[in-house]
């Protein structure tokens, strides 16, 4: 049941991206749950060559994610650990895979089942006699940091330190251009606000209007950032900002002194109701409406840093960025691929020379 619904949503999403209007006199709007081809959600370490995993679950799944990002004093990510809680609310069998480039997974506190780990991601299987929480703490491969929504950078300037927070969510959608009747737009938005954005079916996305062509639009997922920036000996600086949704996508906080601060920030993509214009906020054009829908869709993607087998089910994700001290081991592990390769080459060269010398000595003594 769940898998069919998930498939239906994906098919609907795909159909909506087909560059054609549904019929003469109608405009097909972008689905607020459409997905771009790029992550999030994350994919596994291997995505091909393996048989598809069965997807089965009873009723709806609730997905709650906490993405913990350890950053160094410059703001660079050192590691990403996700705690994902999927809640089943009805009795029945469940078996599904959550794609993830995971290096380690353990059951999180409160989990009522044990997760498994494959190259493709995290596997769950069992029987729920009623409500059941499936919670996993997942350590991700370093590459996952490239998909994070917020970029933090800390740099010293003359006599001060600048902390720059940048919303780096970017998505591109192909949409139909043209014009629609303002009343139809108002009615459509009212229905979305009333009934939610995840259960919209394709027929509800067709509005009367005149199509003129197609365009590729770029959107961002608005983020709400809260937290503190702390420098020893001073009161912490509070952060409360929205990046995107009409606000700048970058904010810079300048602190006096030379000491690099410790950051504790939480970034959350805005929910659909926060992104959609209110009843009294006019949407002037079809292009503006498609832009809003694109933002809702992209934000919905960031609410699935790890995917849920029920993409239409309720989902929230919060990204927590905390300054951590880099250990020598972490420093090596967190190094860029170039640095890592250099270390590997040096080690292989040293070991190779040692093996050759050893072999020559052995040969001489045979």
């Amino acid at each position, binding site marked *: 049941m769940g898998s069919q619904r998930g498939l239906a949503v994906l098919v609907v999403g795909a159909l909506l991206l087909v560059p054609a209007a549904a019929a003469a006199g109608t405009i097909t709007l972008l689905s607020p749950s459409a997905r771009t081809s790029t992550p999030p959600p994350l994919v596994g370490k*291997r995505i091909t*060559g*393996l*048989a598809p*995993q*069965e997807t*089965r679950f009873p009723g709806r799944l609730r997905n709650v994610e906490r993405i913990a990002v350890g950053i160094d004093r410059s703001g660079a990510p050192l590691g990403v650990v996700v705690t994902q809680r999927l809640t089943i609310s009805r*009795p*029945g*069998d469940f*078996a599904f895979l959550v794609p993830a480039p995971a290096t380690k*997974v353990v059951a999180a506190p409160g989990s009522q*089942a*044990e997760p*498994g*780990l*494959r*190259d*493709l991601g995290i*596997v769950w*299987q*069992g*029987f*729920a*006699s*009623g409500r059941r929480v499936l919670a996993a703490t997942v350590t991700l491969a370093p590459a996952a940091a490239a998909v994070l929504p917020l970029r933090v950078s800390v740099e010293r300037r003359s006599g001060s330190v600048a902390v720059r927070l940048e919303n780096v969510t970017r998505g591109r959608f192909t949409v139909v251009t043209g014009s629609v009747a303002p009343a139809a737009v108002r009615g459509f938005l009212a229905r979305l606000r009333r009934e939610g954005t995840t259960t919209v079916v394709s027929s509800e996305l067709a509005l009367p209007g005149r199509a003129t062509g197609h365009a590729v639009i770029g959107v961002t997922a608005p983020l709400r950032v809260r937290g503190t920036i702390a420098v020893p000996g001073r009161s912490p600086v509070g952060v409360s900002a929205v990046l995107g949704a009409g606000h700048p996508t970058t904010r810079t906080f300048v602190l006096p002194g030379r000491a690099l601060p410790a950051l504790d920030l939480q970034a959350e993509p805005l929910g659909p109701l926060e992104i959609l214009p209110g009843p009294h906020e006019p949407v002037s054009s079809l292009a503006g409406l498609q832009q809003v829908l694109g933002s809702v869709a992209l934000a919905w993607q960031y609410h699935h840093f790890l995917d849920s087998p029920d993409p239409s089910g309720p989902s929230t994700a919060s990204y927590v960025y905390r300054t951590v001290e880099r250990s020598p081991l972490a420093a090596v592990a967190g190094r860029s691929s170039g640095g890592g390769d250099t270390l590997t080459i040096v080690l292989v060269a040293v070991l190779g020379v040692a093996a050759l010398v050893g072999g020559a000595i052995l*040969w001489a003594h*045979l």
Partner: protein
Amino acid sequence: MLKAAVACAALVVLLAGCGSSERSSRPRELTIAVDAPFSRDSYLGTTIENGVRLGSRDTLLTVGGDDYRIRVVRYDNAHSASRAVADVRRAVAQHAAAIVSDGTGIDAAWKIADRAHIPIAIVFDGGTGLVDPAKRPNVFRIAPTDHGIAFRFAEYLIPKKLKVAFLTDDTGYGREGRAALDHAFSENASSVAARIQAPSTATDLAPQVLQARRSGATALLVWGQPSTIAEALIAARSSGWNVPVYAPPSAEDPLLRQELAGHPKWLDGLVFASGRMTAEEGPAPFMAFQSAYEQRFGAQQVGVRSGAGRPVVQPPDYAMYPYDFTHLLVAAIQSGKSTDPAKVLAALNEVSVEGANGDSRGFNRINHEGVVDDDVYFARFRGMTYAPVKDDALSATLPVIPQER
């Protein structure tokens, strides 16, 4: 002289890498070794072997340009760890692709197979510690675990407010069961009235059953060989103690029913735990499996008659597990595109198949258990056949599998 020998050996190794690319006309053989107690527990041994044979029937694998068919070789471990070790050595010498075992002697034998990267699949013994992906990367299991059965019993019995007496026998199966029960009931010690161990060779358990009765027990959980469960029932019922009795999967063994054939009423009401035979999609997959099994090997006659006077057959549920493992092995070879044992071993962590009961079956890198604890259900005997109980959430959803012919 030694230098020449080393040089020759190196040349042989080099030449071995330059094999012909021509495709051989006759299929090569992949051996699956079945190590089971054929002489001591014919039902179990035959069930495991038949499961592997059914899972590998008509299988023709093409890997790297070569065709392979599966050959099944059986070894009798007679429930002896030392014989199991010897069997595993022989299987390794034969370059077996996998070893399917009831679980006997695996603590001692797994390392021998691991050195050759040969996977071992345990398809009966649920003992805790037998399977550990970190320490024993080549050991897998498709069978309900003792841990799962014990925790499901705790989940099922504690809300009934019963005072349970554990009666376990002194076999490895009984001792493992006792440990699992102790762990599962550790948070609810007041639910346990007594912990009693009985010799597996005893032909009369009246003293142990009397001890349980005097402890104030209102339920008896007997974890041991089928003969132990039979003796416990005989002792309880013949003394007029109509206590509810619970048992692990060994209660399914036809031997139990054969021993109680003279007093079928004494078996009535016995509840045992086992792995479910059907998934949410219903009984069709298992019925198809059972039909294929019976067509090939005949029905598993229990040797007793039902309450309606008809012959009783045992559903081949424990044949599902070796059958499913055989399919997983084939899937792993196909996924890894190699019969190289190390590659097959790694691929076993990444593949799933639809099991004989319709459920998805597979392992992963941190869990080598093919039956999740959730899949343990409870069934109650009545008239020499059994049906899922109705007072457990999972069991209540399961259909009755016909057992009369």
